[in-house]
């Protein structure tokens, strides 16, 4: 399922956007209602404020001048009224802004949680089809974009009351004039439609470019060392500048459209008033209306300007709401779930591994693994060897059910892996991948991942992984914090921590997928020797995807894969003797050595 959303003109953004906001209002209905009440209080008291002023003029100022003195009671009343209204109005504002803001933040939090929950539920096959940058943006920037227009909503809805009250008051003054004035509403509506259409297109483009800018920066900073080493800072900056300027232009294009809308929204009520006054004059002259009524309608019109502006804010943000929603919904409605069984895996100690008819391939391409069949006795170490593309890593993923085969099965101690519960499977089988992912956390947490083991067990695992020395040398030892992706450690150190993570669980089947690639050969040898004590003790079966002769040599036997099938199997020496292809593969190492020896011999 593709998450791509085009950036062409969109239709009906207004309605769709409003419907989305209604969803949000329903989800937080209690708090939103409070904010709405606050907004209505605010609106009502704004009118009250005007009324108090009128009252003060008629009942305090004028009479006091006439009588020549200011009665204490009246003065107190004035102060009380104004302050009372102001304080109540302030409470209304607080309710509206604070609670309105909380609604906005809560909605964002809720949707972030939902999106990340989906990420955790969806199977690896789904993850493999979507770039991480896009998924991160869905959980963050897109969620934000959806609910942006939520902030002015309480205000906009609250003042609808003001609007309705004002219109009713206008109608009681003079129906014809009111209708004349209200002609601005259809005008506003029409303008809004055009505005939405033009704006969505540009906003969508700007949103994409924003992601591009982020991607370029991300990649460039990732390769900062290469950039520095080759002195290509200027070239990189040029590349970034290009896409930054594109974003700038897109934002300006969107801004131009917005710049038209707001002044129009401001100007319309004013034109409405003028229209009312001018036509009102005709009506007064013809005797159809009173001057006072015209004044009333005109005055009430000026009050309407305010709610109209609030509507404008909401309408203006709807394109982003709709676009963000589409992107977020693509994740929330994605189907697919990793299915686990109900069985536990009884017993302890090394597992027996049986693979039958194992077939796996990606849609549209040929099979990566074809009818694989092999057994591994408990406690044995098997090396899987083959050229790049022979299916070794895929096999590793299948053994731990990161992906499921198209055909065939993986059995652990005669139980189908698919029948096991997730905890049972994860407890029994550990995979150490080539690219170690470390969390923004302490080394201890990175190794235990929340498993309740004591530090001794952690140190033991680090020891076998040959990581205890460098961890011990860190100033805070196990408590040392690792940065994003554990970048403060070297590649080899990261791999060893990932290995310790697998080992601390005392797995019954350990799968190493080129897990020592960044580690020095002598250290790797020590690791493999260390593992021996666990295999020979019958504690764990080991399947290791091997590239180095040293690794192969330490295995009990070798599985030779080519083009997704097992070409041969047996102890290393036997395979060398009887399989020319295998011999070629492994001898190539020797050839490299031999070539080097020859050259060395030539150097005087």
């Amino acid at each position: 399922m593709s998450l791509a959303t085009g950036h062409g003109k969109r239709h009906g953004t207004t309605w769709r956007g409003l419907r989305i906001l209604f969803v949000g209002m329903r989800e937080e209905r209690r708090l939103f209602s409070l904010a709405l009440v606050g907004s209505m209080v605010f609106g009502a008291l704004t009118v009250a404020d005007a009324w108090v002023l009128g009252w003060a003029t008629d009942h305090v100022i004028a009479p006091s001048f006439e009588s020549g003195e200011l009665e204490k009671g009246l003065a107190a009343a004035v102060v009380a009224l104004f302050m009372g209204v102001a304080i109540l109005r302030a409470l209304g504002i607080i309710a509206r802004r604070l609670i309105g803001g909380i609604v906005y933040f809560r909605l964002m939090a809720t949707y972030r949680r939902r999106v990340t929950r989906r990420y955790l539920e969806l199977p690896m096959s789904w993850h493999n089809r979507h770039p991480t940058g896009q998924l991160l943006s869905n959980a963050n920037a897109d969620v934000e974009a959806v609910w942006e227009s939520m902030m002015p909503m309480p205000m906009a809805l609250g003042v609808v009351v003001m609007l309705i009250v004002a219109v009713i008051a206008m109608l009681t003054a003079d129906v014809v004039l009111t209708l004349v004035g209200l002609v601005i509403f259809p005008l506003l509506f029409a303008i809004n439609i055009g505005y939405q259409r033009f704006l969505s297109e540009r906003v969508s483009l700007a949103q994409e470019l924003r992601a591009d800018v982020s991607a370029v920066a991300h990649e460039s900073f990732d390769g900062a060392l290469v950039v520095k080493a080759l002195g290509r800072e200027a070239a990189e900056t040029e590349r970034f500048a290009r896409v930054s300027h594109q974003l700038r232009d897109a934002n300006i294009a969107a801004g131009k459209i917005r710049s038209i809308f707001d002044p129009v929204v401001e100007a319309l009520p004013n034109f409405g008033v003028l229209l009312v006054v001018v036509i009102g004059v005709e009506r007064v002259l013809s005797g159809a209306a009173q001057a006072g009524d015209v004044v009333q309608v005109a005055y009430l019109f000026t009050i309407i300007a305010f709610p109209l502006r609030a509507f404008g804010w909401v309408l203006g943000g709807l394109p982003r709401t709709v676009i963000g929603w589409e992107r977020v919904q693509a994740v929330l409605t994605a189907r697919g779930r990793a299915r686990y069984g109900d069985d536990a895996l009884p017993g302890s100690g090394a597992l027996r591994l049986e693979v039958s008819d194992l077939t796996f391939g990606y849609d549209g391409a040929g099979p990566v693994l074809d009818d694989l069949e092999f057994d591994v006795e408990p406690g044995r170490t098997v090396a899987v060897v083959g050229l790049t593309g022979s299916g070794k890593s895929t096999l590793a993923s299948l053994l731990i059910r990161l992906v499921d085969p198209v055909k065939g099965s993986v059995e652990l101690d005669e139980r189908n892996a698919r029948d096991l519960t997730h905890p049972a499977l994860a407890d029994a089988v550990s995979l150490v991948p080539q690219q170690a992912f470390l969390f923004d956390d302490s080394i201890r947490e990175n190794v235990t991942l929340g498993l309740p083991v004591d530090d001794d067990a952690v140190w033991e695992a680090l020891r076998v992984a040959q990581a205890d020395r460098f961890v011990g040398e860190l100033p805070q030892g196990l408590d040392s914090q690792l940065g994003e992706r554990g970048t403060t450690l070297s590649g080899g150190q990261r791999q060893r921590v990932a290995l310790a993570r697998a080992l601390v669980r005392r797995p019954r089947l350990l799968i190493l997928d080129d897990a020592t690639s960044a580690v020095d050969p002598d250290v790797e040898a020590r690791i493999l020797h260390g593992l021996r004590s666990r295999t020979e003790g019958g504690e764990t079966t080991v399947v290791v995807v091997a590239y180095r002769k040293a690794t192969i040599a330490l295995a009990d036997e070798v599985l030779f894969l080519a083009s997704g099938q097992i070409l041969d199997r047996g102890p290393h020496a036997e395979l060398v003797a009887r399989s020319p292809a295998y011999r070629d593969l492994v001898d190539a190492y020797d050839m490299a050595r031999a070539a080097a020896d020859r050259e060395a011999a030539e150097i005087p």
Partner: protein
Amino acid sequence: MSDGGRSRVGSGEEVTGWQILRRGFALSPALREGLGVTLLLGALSTIGSAIVPVVIQKTIDDGLLGTGGIDRSQIWTYAWLAAGVVLVTAFAAYWMKVRLYKASEAGLAELRIKAFRHVHDLPVLTQDTERRGGLVSRVTSDVDQVSLFLQFSGLLMVISVGQIIVATVVMAVYSWELTLIVWACFVPLIASLRYFQKRMTAAYAKVRQTVGEMLSTISEPVVGASVVRAHNIATRTQERVDASINANLAANTAAQKLVAVTFASAGVAGGLANASVVVFGVLLGLAGHLSVGTVIAFAFLVSLLVGPVQMATQVLTEAQNAIASWRRVIGVLDTPADVVDPGESGVSLPRGSLTASFHDVDYAYPDGPPVLREVSVDIESQARVAVVGETGSGKTTFAKLLCRLMDPTEGMVCLDGVDLRTLRFSSLRDRVVMVPQEGFLFDASLRDNLRYGRPEASDAELVEAIVSLGLADWFETLRDGLETQVGQRGESLSAGERQLVALVRAYLADPDLLVLDEATSAVDPQTELRISAALDHLLSGRTSVIIAHRLSTAEQADQILVFDAGRLVERGPHAELVAAGGVYARLHASWVAQSHLHAATD
């Protein structure tokens, strides 16, 4: 080396809000361009929007309610006038907004690019240890925040200030005494704002901090998806994510409380002002200073002031958030680059193979343990030098110092006798190239990646380079040839192929001193052979320093430098060192044991 998670990049916290604004404008000259005209337009639209109600009022007062009865022509005159003012105001507002968008977007694009460039100038250590997302956000979302602010709130601020000024002037015309009284009512508001401002700065800083942590934990279910499934830690991961999301929610709520209270207090001050005007207006009027008409008119004028004051208060609160973001961006720009290009005042070295030397060099991480101690060595021109040692022995630091990716804490590193620090970068980066351990490739074509070594190279030259390194047959296997897309970080190629590309790139750069950190990633034997051959071709005729992970590299070197715990403990050709039976002999023996295991079992 872990540093306990403290950021080395400046957060700009030491600087006040005003200074940030000033520096922000200084760093983005486009913001100031035509600011005069923009402000003028702003003033125009402000005055316009103030005049409109006045004209409308006059139309009603004089036209409808006037003592002479209704004067149609007068009303029409006023109406046309008012309509004209409305149009001019709207047009001025439109024009001003467009100019504002242009200026702010252009100015902030400048800032973005400056910050981006500076990130590349940051010390290698800082680049390595800083949260990648943190650096990216400074050139993206932080700048976006400032942009949003300038375009919406910043504009409102300008208009509000304008309206406040206009209102004050108009009020003063009616009665300067009442004007003073009104302003006196706003004094407590201003005082409280200063108090709130400090707390808001802290609140928004907290918000941004929680945002950073949230972004980090949210990346776990995405980037670490396979780890989460393999170890069945979905529940734990969800809990971590939820916790960081909730922390962010709490921080936002706390900041919002301050915002709401601040905004509301402006309204309360307004109520006080209204009451004061009525009471004191009457008192003053009774004392003979003011007429009843003035007092009444003034009472209505106060509202002209209160609205903008409230708006300005709101904008001030939003300014805190924007200033916090601006601060972070400026913080990056303020973080000093450690290795600085001497530029014009530096020297250039003529082409030709280089000698290199270390003179009593020490290196220690800032407030960290020493990594290199008293290293002195001379490297001859065209020599092939291998550097060996266990992880953490300092050999990678040695290589980085040699390329001037870092500067020594003590001592001097020289090329042809010239201190690296006096060497112009244009010359240095041309002559010395480092190939790091992990061949980093950009998400582009093979051609683009190779051109990174020599931007002006033609396709023919690229192919020639590939052939010169003996890689013609590998190149044949690429279906799209130079057009081949290598993918993010080069993931479409195998690890071995990435190394090959890095080598060709280095060859194209044609350095006089090549520093290579040999990759340890195991590759399939065919590629292994190709790499060895390519390396051979690459090294001939150049001075080279290789951090060796392959037995053959060390054995073939002219000189081997052996590092142990930060010191250069042994040096010499292979045979000598083996015979000496020291650190190297031990390392060599274990190496041999690994690769000869096969021979033994045969």
